């Protein structure tokens, strides 16, 4: 009389973790039982699914942070060793800006000898660093261009990136978020640059700019914005191309008489404490926006200074399809 076959042997067979006797038993069972063969196929497919989960990469500064924390811990400085992520994230963002400056130094002094400053930055880190250098002030917003491969609709990628970064999308009809004002300020800025008049065709503007396929306003901490842009680049781009276009003046919306409590509805009012802590995005009609074909940022790069990852920024992301 043979003992009952245990299904768990199939898993171990799949993993090549059986003794020779057990392997022989499984193979005999598989030869006789189609259901067992089907289960083995399903286990194999499942295993493949988990194995193909994407890998995660630590940030370029991770090792430096770890070693600094380890050395500090050994030197009886627990406050550094125990620093939570948000604290060192601020340092990372600052380091990112500093490293961008370091890249410039290396470019200008290519034979200056060995340096410990400039580690190679990934294209994504470089793009973020170039934006981080020009983060807007309180009453400013930064316009960022993202170029995606032709033939794809980036809307789904944008949705995934925003959700992944924990940024909620507001209704496009929300007129109180400040998004529309930022969009209008950018269009005015572009019109002034090309001496365009409202409603009058301007060949220079048409020739010098390209249409966009998606326009998204984000108001969030720099940490959240950077996470969303990173995800967007990782998802859409074979060659990430994200660059700041301009920094424009656009006052934040305020509500008179708002001294406490919230207005009707569940959305926090812009300017309220709740709004200040909510990360949000809002789609704008892409047809109303264009980007310069060869634009450099209008404002010179600011000197690299420490950037607080929790600094709240407003970003208008304009997505253009690569020719």
């Amino acid at each position, binding site marked *: 009389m043979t003992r009952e076959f245990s299904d768990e042997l199939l898993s171990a067979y799949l*993993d090549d973790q059986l003794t020779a006797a057990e392997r022989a038993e499984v193979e005999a069972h598989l030869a006789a039982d189609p259901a067992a063969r089907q289960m083995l196929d399903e286990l194999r497919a499942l295993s493949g699914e988990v194995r193909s989960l994407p890998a995660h990469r630590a*940030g370029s500064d991770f090792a430096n942070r*770890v070693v600094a924390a380890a050395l500090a*811990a*050994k030197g009886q400085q627990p406050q550094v060793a125990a620093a939570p992520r948000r604290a060192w994230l601020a340092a990372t963002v600052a380091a990112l800006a500093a490293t961008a400056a370091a890249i410039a130094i290396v470019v200008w002094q290519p034979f200056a000898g060995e340096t410990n400053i400039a580690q190679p930055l990934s294209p994504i880190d470089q793009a973020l660093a170039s934006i981080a250098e020009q983060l807007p002030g309180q009453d400013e917003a930064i316009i960022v261009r993202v170029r995606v491969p032709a033939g794809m609709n980036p809307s789904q990628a944008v949705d995934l990136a925003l959700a992944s970064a924990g940024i909620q999308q507001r209704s496009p009809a929300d007129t109180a978020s400040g998004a529309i004002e930022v969009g209008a300020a950018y269009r005015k800025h572009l019109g002034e640059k090309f001496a365009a008049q409202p409603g009058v065709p301007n060949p220079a503007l048409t020739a010098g700019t390209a249409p966009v396929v998606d326009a998204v306003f984000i108001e969030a901490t720099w940490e959240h914005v950077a996470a969303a842009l990173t*995800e967007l680049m990782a998802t859409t781009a074979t060659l990430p191309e994200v660059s700041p276009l301009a920094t424009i003046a656009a006052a934040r919306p305020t509500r008179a008489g708002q001294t406490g409590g919230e207005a009707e509805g569940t959305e926090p009012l812009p300017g309220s404490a709740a709004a200040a802590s909510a990360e949000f995005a809002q789609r704008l009609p892409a047809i109303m926006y264009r980007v310069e074909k060869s634009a450099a940022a209008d404002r010179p790069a600011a000197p690299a200074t420490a950037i607080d990852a929790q600094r709240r920024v407003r970003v208008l992301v304009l997505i253009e399809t690569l020719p």
Partner: protein
Amino acid sequence: MTTDDPQLIEATLRGDSAAYSTLVRKYQDRLLTALVHVGGSREEAEDVAQEAFVQAYLKLATFAGGSSFYTWLYRIAFNAAISRRRKRRGEASLDQSREASGSEPADDSESADERLLRRERAVQVRQALSQLAEEFRSVLVLREVEGCDYDTIAEILDLPVGTVRSRLHRARLQLKEQLLEVLAEKTRTAPGGTKD
């Protein structure tokens, strides 16, 4: 500089912090990936990875070399992750699965749409994985993501090999069930509802 673990460890113990930095760089992505899949968010996984590397540095003199450095490191990290999760048991993990969709390099032979579909599938698998009990998720990650053999899993989790074998099989069966539930839920909530 050498990338051989024993030499890097020896150099670290002599006070060469650059050697430890090389060790960290060698294993940081592998450890981070495993920790994200074990169930923490990306943010928490980075915290735990950092904590583990710091602890490993402090305890390095006690590393006897009976197992590989990575197995030893992983055990430190795994215990730290479990300890954290037990402190805040019950938190929703859906956001973790969304968040942890990964950032693998793009495959040039794959279209953008194919990449989106693959990422969506990865999110579903992650979501199903996150629904498993911790004991099942850990053993699955160690086997499928880390590629550990049963003996190593037993060493890391401090379990008999027989338990690893049975638990892994049950984990796979549960993952299959969860994946079917995730797919069914997706079909129910998709625009237009269910399709025949």
